[in-house]
């Protein structure tokens, strides 16, 4: 089988894994055993930690995540369009931009929603 790009990619990643994993094992073995409540407390610059750490922070930016998924898919189509742009007949080269323009409205809505922190 030819040494094509993906075989080399797998070989490279395997190499990195084989290089890093022993370091982690070494570090794990080097560590002290046993739990110590002071050493194992979460780091808060000396203060004792109070309350649950995993709370609802920054929920108002949730629309940004959804818009990222949408524009990720848009980017997939846009890159194929960009590659073929010079081969397209003139008028049809711009139809894909309609696709992009349509999605400006949800983006505006998402931006509007994320500026209102009280509803999240």
């Amino acid at each position: 089988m030819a040494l094509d790009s993906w075989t080399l990619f797998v070989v490279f990643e395997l190499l990195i894994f084989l290089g890093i994993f022993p370091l982690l094992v070494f570090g794990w073995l080097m560590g002290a055993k046993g739990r110590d409540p002071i050493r194992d407390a979460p780091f808060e610059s000396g203060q004792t930690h109070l309350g649950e750490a995993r709370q609802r922070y920054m929920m108002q930016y949730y629309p940004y995540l959804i818009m990222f998924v949408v524009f990720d898919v848009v980017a997939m189509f846009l890159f194929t369009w960009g590659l073929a742009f010079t081969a397209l007949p003139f008028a049809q080269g711009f139809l894909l931009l309609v696709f992009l323009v349509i999605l400006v409205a949800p983006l505006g809505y998402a931006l509007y929603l994320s500026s209102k922190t009280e509803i999240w």
Partner: protein
Amino acid sequence: MRRLQGLPALDEIVSLAVRIITSRTFLEILVFPGFLNITLSAAFLTWLERKVIARVQLRIGPLYAGMWGILQPIADGVKLMFKEMIFPELADARLLMLCALSLMLIAAAPVVAIPFGDGLVIANMEIGLIYVFAAVSLFPTVILLIGWGSNSKYPFIGGLRSLFQQVSYEIPMWFSALGIVMLTGSLNLTEIVKAQQNIWFLVPQVLGFAVFFTTVLAELERIPFDLPEAETELVMGWMTELSGVAFMIGFLAMYIKLYLMSALITVLFLGGWLGPPLLPDPVWFLVKTFLVSSVIVIIRGSFPRVRIDLLLKAGWTRLLLLALANIFVTVILIVLGLDWMWRV
């Protein structure tokens, strides 16, 4: 579908392994531009950053480990290897270690497609640019997992901020590279460099370069987009609860990412390895890459930090609009027929 008779015999696997190991590509993978290249360059960049930041802040920086402190990264690495990996009781140690490992795998992945010279690339992928973008897009997932797995307020907030920041700036990054794809008609990074033989893409894609550089700063979580780390607020951000070897891996992964993103900027906008024949090609590439990294490091010492909501909004509004304007400019260039300069 056919019956699975095609399972290779053991000697076939062994012969393939031997063929891989004795090939020139494997040497490339190991030494340059692969494993040794990125680790040594990342270590060098840690030293460079500390020295440059120190000079910007009228200090001296690392001084004692070797001449000019050049062995400081090695000293740091050895120290970190022997420090204990303290995982808090509430944190998920296995998840954190798995994620630190994944961070390194993801950070090192782009080097497979980036050409350091003519033909000096590990795997000349036809979709090289998209491959690099896909590798970079995996960072938010891992960082979110590290932030959550640490089960502590500072890392969690840092992880969330990093997630939103990187996610908001990835789209302008991709759109600003689209202009180059349109001008060359290829996603192959070697062809993109070769297309810059007449004029670098810095010239027609000035807007794209500005947007791309800004988004790379945001992807690297560098000042002025430093809030996920925010040293005065969040200790070390999402890396707070990593210590010892796990911290070394995460820290090194961040600097490998810096190195490879600078290399990507060089390939896309600064003509890659092209230059007057005074120096060999890879040396030109390294010179340009370290120049870009130095600019990124100097920016760290020179700018204040942007607030998180302004940061995210700017990524989605201004940068996206500028990237789209860049695409518009590129369309005009192509329609006017000026793209012959970049079609080899």
